[in-house]
């Protein structure tokens, strides 16, 4: 494992090394120490590699990630794994706002809580939060899955498209056009596979509820014409 120290090396140098990995190199395992809340650590990685970040990180950690597996032993700031395409990001602490925002693929696992707007405009990512999420989570979520083992804040799934929300606890309130759905066998299996990804015991599978789009905002409703 190659150790990178952000107290000694600049963030730009560390990110440059990880973003432009020597294709022939077999050293694909890195540990970053002293992140000290710096922003954009591990942003734009595009090769298969394992990176462990030891400590708390600032904004946009592992943003735009492709293929890499990033683990954070600490908390992360706004926009962790935003616009991720593939790969995985595992946050051992809590995440701030907009975790997994607009991400197209890959897996984001948060062991703690996330604050507001978790999975905002998500487009295919799987997000598994072992704690609770804040208000406006899964706002305009287009596809992918958001699993919440705790509770959710106000307006969960507001203006949601075809993403699925699985929640064990209770949402404080639902956003516009978000409704509770019946879970069929396929949904159960999907949830099972998602929990497995986050190493969550299968026994936890019970009591999850599923939410999705009521699809009433998809087309203009002529009855609302006077509202505009």
């Amino acid at each position, binding site marked *: 494992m190659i150790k990178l120290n952000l107290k000694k090396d600049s963030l730009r140098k560390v990110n440059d090394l990880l973003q432009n990995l020597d294709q022939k190199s077999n050293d694909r395992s890195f540990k970053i120490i002293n992140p*000290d*809340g*710096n*922003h954009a650590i591990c942003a734009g990685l595009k090769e298969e590699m394992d990176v462990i970040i030891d*400590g*708390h990180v*600032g*904004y946009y950690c592992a943003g735009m990630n492709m293929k890499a597996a990033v683990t954070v032993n*600490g*908390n992360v*700031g*706004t926009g962790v794994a935003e616009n991720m395409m593939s790969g995985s990001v595992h946050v051992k*602490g*809590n995440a*701030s*706002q907009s975790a997994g925002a607009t991400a197209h693929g890959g897996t984001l696992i948060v062991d703690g809580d996330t*604050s*507001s707007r978790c999975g905002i405009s998500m487009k295919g990512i799987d997000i598994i939060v072992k704690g609770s999420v*804040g*208000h406006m989570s899964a706002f305009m979520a287009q596809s992918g899955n958001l699993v919440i083992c705790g509770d959710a804040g106000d307006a969960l799934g507001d203006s949601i498209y075809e993403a699925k929300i699985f929640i064990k606890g209770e949402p404080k309130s639902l956003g516009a056009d978000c409704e509770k759905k019946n879970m069929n066998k396929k949904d159960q299996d999907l949830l099972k596979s998602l929990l497995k990804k986050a190493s969550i015991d299968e026994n936890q599978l019970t009591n999850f509820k599923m939410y999705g789009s009521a699809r009433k905002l998809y087309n203009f409703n002529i009855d609302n014409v006077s509202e505009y």
Partner: protein
Amino acid sequence: MCGIVGLYLKNKKYNKDLGKFLTGMMNNMSTRGPDSAGFAIYSTERKKKYKYSICYNENNIKEIKKNLSKEIKDAKIKIISDHFVLETSLKPLKVISIIKSYDNLNLVGYGSSIEIFKQVGNPRDVVNNFSLKNFSGTHAIGHTRMATESAITTDGSHPYSTGEDECLVHNGSLSNHNNLRRTLKKKGIEIKSQNDTEVAAGYISNGLSNKKSLKDTLIDGLKDLDGFYTFISGTKNGLAIVRDEIACKPAVVAETKDYVAIASEFQAMAHLPNVNKGKIFEPEPGLVYSWGK
């Protein structure tokens, strides 16, 4: 954008390091606000003594000092950069009217515990100019400003103090400050600038002067102050933080057994002793958190 920081010491052994810690916090927040900076330091009050933090605009400070000493017999004047702190046992009403009689003096804040300094320029230079690292005290608030709705001047810089031992820093902007300014002025609250944050400071002063606690005043503010904000407010007893209910503006709190640190971003507090062993959390939207005696 703007960066805000606050530090409340629970353990007296760090009192001498307050300025040093706050310097690091403000330096790390200079990226969020490069236009101007300011800070308020609270130290243990001396009985029957008041401190007046004053910004002077001209170089004739010797003459000002001489004249002030004539008018205020026990005046002790400590000059730091373009500010001086005047210490006297004379009551505020009298001293404020004396200060106002000087065109080139601008009272930044006063009280038995508070000292406030603010200046235009990069926060790294500002904290250096005021030798912040040498200050000791019990709690402190700092601000690094990215100017949006009013000019880059000392008047437009934070913290704002509109009452004895009070101060406020703000990340965000208010949309109903003009109306509120008129209402508060009618109630006798003095607001000097066109800045939105000073109105919020006036709102808090009004609440406190009506014998409300800082916490209750900030809870009322959630209804009355329209806009987006994270506020850190200080009194001589402690600090409070509140975020509006939408919570677009960031804040992180780290509480250890020795201190409570508040900042816009974690990187502002990464250098504090044992911060990683503390409880680190984001204040919930629309909830007031306070620490103090």
